[in-house]
């Protein structure tokens, strides 16, 4: 049974494996990382894969080690994701994502009257705060609007 499950994604020789992504968020992870059709590395991913702690998504990026800064943005939508850096088929580094205190050009401000939603040559900027009562919240550094829900829906 285990062998069959492993076949869903091949092991990679060198690169980055993002594991324990919240189920259904793999495509958003790619958006957060700015991975589009122009991206040259091989990407494979599984959505809704069964894992020990329930279903999850997994993304594997062949031949590319993404920076911790880039990867930490994933915490905005999947705070329990883990990052594995693979070299020669071995996991050489395993980290949990850490919520960044600031993100730029990742999320669209929900305030339609915010200057960051106009045609000005700027990127959206947010400070990021996590609290027990409100979870992850983003505060726009231009207009101060707060996004506390549906962050994934406002990804750029």
């Amino acid at each position, binding site marked *: 049974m285990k062998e069959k499950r492993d076949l869903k994604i091949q092991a990679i020789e060198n690169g980055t494996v993002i594991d324990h992504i919240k189920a259904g968020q793999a495509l958003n992870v790619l958006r957060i990382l700015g991975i589009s059709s122009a991206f040259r590395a091989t990407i494979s991913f599984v959505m809704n894969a069964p894992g020990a702690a329930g279903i999850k998504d997994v993304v594997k990026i062949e031949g590319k080690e993404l920076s911790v800064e880039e990867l930490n943005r994933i915490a905005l939508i999947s705070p329990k994701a883990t990052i594995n850096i693979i070299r020669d088929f071995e996991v050489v580094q395993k980290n949990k994502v850490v919520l960044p205190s600031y993100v730029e050009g990742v999320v669209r401000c929900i*305030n339609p*009257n*915010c*200057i*960051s939603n*106009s*045609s*000005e*040559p*700027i990127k959206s900027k947010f400070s990021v705060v996590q609290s027990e009562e409100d979870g992850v919240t983003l505060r*726009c*550094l*231009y*207009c*101060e*609007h*707060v996004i506390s829900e549906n962050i994934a829906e406002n990804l750029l």
Partner: protein
Amino acid sequence: MSFKNRNVISMKDFSRKEIDHVLDTAEKLEPVARGEERSRLLDGKIIALLFFEPSTRTRLSFESATQRLGGQVLNLGSVEASSVMKGENLADTIRVISKYADLIVLRHPLDGSARMAAEFAGVPIINGGDGSLHHPTQTFLDLYTIRRESHLEGLKIAMAGDLKYGRTVHSLCHALSLYGAEITLVSPPELRMPQEIIRDLQKNNIRIRENDSLEEIIDDVEVLYMTRVQRERFPDPEEYEKVKNRLKVTGDLLKNADSSLKILHPLPRVNEISPEVDSTPYACYFKQAFYGVPTRMALLALATGVIE
């Protein structure tokens, strides 16, 4: 404490000590604002006034402040006649005007525009109002008025009217929380102060109470800050009609007021203060409009560095 090249974007960027310094400077400059003394502090300085939406009082008050200090004003003029109509973005406008002036006063309809302008300007930006967000020079002048006509420390103040959308009351609440105010919020239920602002104030241990009647609170406050219920905020005109006269300061209401009560209003007013109140010692709103001049003089002088 140096204010040279400092931007004035939001009240939240200023500590109590810094606010006090601005108010002290305004007080020193008040005789100049009244035309009783001459000053050449801004001699040789050019202040650009970029008003992308009309605001006659704020613009004229900045013009008066600049000219009283011997400076000169560059005026954008009407937006229709500017490069904005050719499609130039604000960032480019700011970059260019920075080369012509020593300081820019910006008023713009988009939220956060002043913060963005500060990223592109090589000179200080004073926010003359950005969208529905900040109007810090209004708050500075409100604080100055309260200090001159009443007192700031531990003030018992009521704010009444449109507390939901009124940006002046939002930032005034924040600033007064630095002085340990007791704040009473009076509004129709439809126009209550947003909960996140109340939460922020409570975090600063500020005593807040909410009420929907001026009669119930008028005998227990030292300052009453009235605001206009803004017709343009109501998609349904009937809803506006229902609330527009709900809160009104009249001679009758003031029979129960303390003799030292001061009434402020950022103006323009519509129906919320009867003209009969204008001649009473309670009325402070026209003085308040004047106090905008020394306050703006202080901010211009500090940000350009001609006063430390």
